[in-house]
């Protein structure tokens, strides 16, 4: 492993400047989700919230409509051991479909770690208790964040559509679950669990990742209560390292490239977390 250089207040580990080939070591499923564990001996250790651009090394493309062509962005979900990385995937289209087909022994192309992660040092927290809120596959970056925060992180609050998706909660420790259909845990939205927690103790720092409507609800809720929140957003990306200017999201100060200025943004940078062209 190379010595990691970290910038942006320790929130960005620099990536080697080329994609590298990495072997899939293991494929597990958590209900609707696939976890790929990947060998990445040359990869510097990512910060929680950073992401990777992934492509299957073989037969990328050629699916229905001959896509995918470009790599796809995925949060680093966990570093299970030094020189390894895990990704939590949901099959929503040709790229994730191809990646979800991979198994131990297959190779992926990996450009990683990219972007700015969560600000979650003790000084960032400044005495506030960290509150992790995830929706669907947005669970992914909360796992590595939970690992880093250790006991300081209370029970993560996770929302899912239904029972098969709610199995993803097992990827984290001690999660409190809400489901849209009430099949598991709280019947309703994860933001209802968040309201409960903030009612109990509002001296918190929220870290959230999930679909745009959920992030927007979290943003509005935290803004109304003056609770600081960091949101890990998504947008369509071609490159992941600032080259294409394709991934911009509108902020109060204009467009920012989510891949180099995010994907984690302070909630108060945003008018809205409902960014165009993201999500499914």
């Amino acid at each position, binding site marked *: 492993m190379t010595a990691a*250089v970290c*910038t*942006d207040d320790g929130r*960005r580990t*620099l*990536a*080697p*400047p*080329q*994609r590298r080939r990495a072997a899939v070591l293991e494929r597990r499923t958590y209900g609707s989700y696939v976890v790929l564990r990947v060998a990445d001996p040359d990869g510097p250790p990512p910060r929680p919230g950073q992401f990777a651009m992934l*492509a299957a090394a073989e037969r990328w*493309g050629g699916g229905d*409509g*001959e*896509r*995918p*062509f*470009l*790599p796809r962005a995925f949060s680093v979900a966990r570093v299970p051991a030094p020189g390894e990385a895990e990704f939590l995937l949901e099959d929503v289209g040709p790229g994730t479909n191809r990646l979800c087909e991979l198994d131990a022994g297959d190779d992926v*192309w990996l*450009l990683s770690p*990219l972007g700015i992660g969560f600000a979650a040092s003790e000084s960032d927290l400044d005495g506030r208790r960290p509150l992790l809120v995830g929706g669907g596959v947005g669970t992914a970056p909360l796992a590595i964040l939970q690992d880093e925060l250790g006991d300081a992180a209370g029970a993560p609050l996770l929302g899912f559509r239904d029972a098969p998706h709610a199995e993803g909660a097992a990827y984290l420790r001690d999660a409190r679950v809400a489901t849209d259909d009430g099949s598991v845990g709280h019947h309703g939205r994860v933001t209802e669990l968040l309201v409960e927690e903030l009612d109990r103790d509002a001296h918190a720092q929220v870290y959230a990742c999930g679909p745009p409507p959920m992030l927007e609800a979290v943003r509005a809720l935290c803004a109304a209560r003056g609770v600081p929140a960091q949101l890990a957003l998504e*947008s*369509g*990306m*071609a*490159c992941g*390292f*600032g*080259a*294409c*200017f*394709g*991934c*911009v*999201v*509108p902020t109060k100060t*204009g*467009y920012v*490239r989510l891949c*180099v200025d995010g994907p984690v943004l302070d909630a108060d940078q945003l008018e809205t977390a409902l*960014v*165009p*062209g993201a999500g499914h």
Partner: protein
Amino acid sequence: MSAPSLPTSFCGIELAHPIVNGSGTFDAIAAQRAFGDALVEQFPFAAFVSKTVTVAPREGNPPPRLWELPAGLINSIGLPNKGLAGYLTHDLPELARLPVPLIVNVMGFTREEVAQLVTAFAERDEVAALELNVSCPNVETGTIMGSDPTETARLVERVRPLTQKPIVVKLTPNASDPGAVAEAAEAAGADGLSLINTIRGMALDPRTREPWLGAGTGGVSGATVRAVALAQVSDVAQRVSIPLIAMGGVQRGRDADDLLRAGATLVAVGTESFRDPAAGRRVAHELERLRRERTSSGAPTRA
């Protein structure tokens, strides 16, 4: 791996190899934020072409700005940039520190804007050459400056006297006869030409059935335009004698070699850098290997 070595001269600029980047497809400043010094140590290109600079700052087009195609991409980025003053203050000093010559790409909405941009860069030693992006409509005549030979010639004639630096005109592929525009640019004093820019394209949002891209339409690039690029480069190369920077869908050394074979002097890598930031360097290495193999097998390199 050692640095690729295929010394090439373009408009009097000496380069280590013929592979550069396409304007707007690599941001060396952002890439340094992501990759640190390692990027500069193994810089993927033999010269750096910066993203289009306009007189006034631009936010660019509303997102979404990207649509993936079979083997390609439509973008409607909309030339976001800090504007001339912002570029001179913030970007130029940083880009001047790159280990390779700098080519600045500029665009104006009138001839006078282009003249202003050319004049501003004329005296900057950091700048090796200027590339004129003429793919925008002439606000006075309504035609696209770069699709009409007469418009292109008038523009080049206007700005040619303003600098001693090489002026490269970047042609648009959305023209009935890019070769005629190329001839007009050469006659008007252009030192080089670059082609192809993106081809106009569109996609609909599968759910709403409305145009997907925030700007409605965009430009197609990537492997999907390679055959069109080769045809245009081959045609233009036969009609002018100034050197060409060829681009469009280059993914491998062989693609670059095809464009050089068709008559180009330099080859730019664009969309392929999105799949791998080191693509330019890889292409240069593959090209070097192809050349070596061909020389050792005695096959002709150029008819």
